[in-house]
């Protein structure tokens, strides 16, 4: 069999072979088979083609997680365009910026988002076509919207496009230090090489049921969606509501007989503490994968004690490479252990090296920045050639090494150990957050004269984000007013945990904000 080069090729092949298998389950709302998902995504493809979408375009995805949004993703991929998922819970202005920045031809969205989205897009002088669902609901929403569009003009049947390896499959926007999110461009080859690496290690099979806990704008979703659908396994979509209640979530893992769980460690820590796991039958679970931040050992120990049967993997990697190193945690987690587990060894489709400040290979055992090259590494940032150039170390032989910004060292077993960042990026609940983007958001408040944001280690949450502010006016905004302002200007995971007002921020001798002193004050 010829190697797969397009991300949707595996799914289409599986749908042809096993049309009656269940592909996606949306608990409480229904499920869809491979065959039906293939047909609905064909119809979505045809509708997008009729709207003028062509290979090489971008199509926005502004939908809540659902069977409808999975069908939309595959419909977009089948046109040869790249999908650009945005966070439906993020401020509409941020989402409009993303859709306008990468010049989507069409955005697939829901009625509830349309009015604000149109307003915000108009401010940016951007007017992509909107394909609007009344709402998402177990696949019925997209089917109804396609039926309704066919009433005015039937979309002629088109062909599925299988773009080459360098064509973009999706663009994921991550926090940007200048206050604007930046688009990480991932090609079909990037995605397929990652999906195939996952298959090599996790051996997805018929009968597997993968959790889809991460939202689709988050890179963890690439494994959740595309690994099971290529290999004939099912996906169980976990909605945002369930994620708020660990007892309910744990029950869902049991009731849906989930076999492979993948999420940020923070949700696993909540499950370990509040999930009442001992009361449930979780014997179907064979894999627990976690990524996005450091898993506090005490919570991992507690989880592994309650669930000793699955294999546990710590996956590491920035959006720019997706997972690039991995480590299997061998149980039990000893009582003495307090240091987090290593991030492990490089994945087989990539290569890694550790460099010093001048970009030279660091001596064995010394700390340095982890750099990655290979088939999984992004092409660059959308329309940001300078940031793209700064993101890579290019060798004289032309090999581009992506600079992760993460400082690592190797241990005696040649596993990489994460030591910290070289810049102002932090991970919070699995999301990466540029502290500069939070500051830029705070500066939009008319009363804020100065803003400086620091992160501090926190045993429970991983990091705690503190904003130090000074005010232009004599009356400072209330904490409630500040939080509400943040909710309108920043994604939820970027809102500081604490706000501290000062008469003026401390400065260094060169009149820059003294972050070290601020950290000391916390």
């Amino acid at each position, binding site marked *: 069999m010829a190697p797969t080069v397009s991300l949707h090729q595996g799914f289409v092949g599986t749908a042809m072979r096993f049309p009656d298998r269940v592909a996606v389950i949306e608990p409480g709302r229904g499920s869809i088979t491979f065959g039906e998902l293939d047909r609905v995504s064909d119809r979505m493809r045809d509708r997008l083609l009729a709207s003028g979408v062509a290979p090489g375009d971008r199509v926005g995805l502004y939908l809540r997680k659902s069977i409808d949004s999975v069908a939309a993703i595959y419909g977009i991929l089948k046109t040869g365009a790249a999908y650009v998922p945005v966070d439906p819970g993020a401020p509409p202005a941020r989402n409009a910026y993303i859709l306008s920045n990468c010049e989507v031809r069409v955005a697939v969205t829901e009625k509830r988002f349309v009015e604000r989205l149109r307003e915000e897009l108009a401010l940016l002088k951007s007017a992509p076509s909107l394909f609007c669902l009344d709402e998402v609901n177990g696949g019925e929403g997209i089917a109804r919207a396609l039926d309704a569009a066919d009433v005015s003009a039937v979309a002629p049947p088109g062909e599925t496009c299988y773009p080459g390896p360098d064509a973009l499959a999706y663009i994921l926007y991550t926090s940007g230090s200048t206050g604007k999110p930046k688009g990480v461009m991932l090609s079909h080859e990037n995605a397929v090489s990652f999906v195939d690496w996952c298959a090599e290690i996790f051996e997805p099979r018929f009968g597997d049921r993968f959790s889809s806990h991460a939202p689709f704008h988050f890179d963890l979703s690439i494994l959740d969606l595309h690994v099971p659908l290529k290999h004939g396994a099912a996906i169980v979509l976990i909605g945002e*509501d369930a994620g*708020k209640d660990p007892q*309910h979530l744990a029950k869902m893992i049991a009731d849906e007989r989930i076999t492979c769980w993948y999420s940020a460690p923070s949700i696993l820590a909540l499950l370990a503490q509040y999930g009442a796991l001992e009361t449930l039958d979780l014997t179907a679970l064979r894999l627990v994968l976690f990524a996005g931040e450091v898993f506090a050992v005490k919570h991992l120990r507690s989880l592994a004690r309650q669930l000793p049967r699955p294999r546990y993997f710590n996956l590491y990697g920035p959006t720019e490479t997706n997972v690039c190193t991995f480590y299997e945690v061998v149980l039990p987690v000893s009582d003495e252990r307090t240091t987090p587990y290593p991030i492990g060894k490089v994945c087989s489709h990539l290569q890694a090296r550790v460099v010093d400040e001048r970009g030279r290979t660091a001596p064995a055992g010394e700390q340095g920045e982890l750099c990655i090259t290979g088939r999984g590494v992004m092409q660059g940032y959308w329309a940001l050639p300078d940031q793209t150039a700064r993101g890579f170390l290019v060798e004289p032989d032309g090999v581009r090494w992506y600079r992760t910004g993460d400082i690592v060292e190797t241990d005696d077993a040649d596993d990489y150990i994460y030591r910290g960042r070289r810049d102002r990026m932090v991970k919070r609940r699995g999301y990466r957050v540029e502290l500069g983007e939070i500051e830029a958001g705070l500066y939009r408040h008319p009363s804020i004269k100065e803003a400086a944001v620091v992160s501090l280690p926190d045993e429970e*949450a991983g990091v705690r984000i503190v904003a130090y502010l000074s005010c232009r006016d004599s009356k400072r905004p*209330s904490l*409630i007013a500040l939080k*509400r302002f943040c909710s309108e200007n920043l994604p*939820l995971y970027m809102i500081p945990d604490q706000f501290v007002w000062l008469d003026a921020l401390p400065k260094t001798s060169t009149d820059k904000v003294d972050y070290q002193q601020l950290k000391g004050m916390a």
Partner: protein
Amino acid sequence: MPDSIESAVKTFILNEFLPGEDPAELTMQTPLITGAILDSIATMKLVLFLEETWGIRLEAHEASPDNLDTIALIAGLVHSKQA
């Protein structure tokens, strides 16, 4: 005591999530979830507080802004669960 639920919830939110805030700023209609006072973990802690204090059980779909976005809504939900 018709307002006991409201005042108990208000005290809990002020103590847990808004330390140092002027209590007068937190009204019955202040948006809690959509106003970013309660994130998902804070919402979970609030739900545990409601369940333990009033001996009720909330389903996952009930832990949404439709039911929990203001103190008035929360009090209404607790009342309906007790009925």
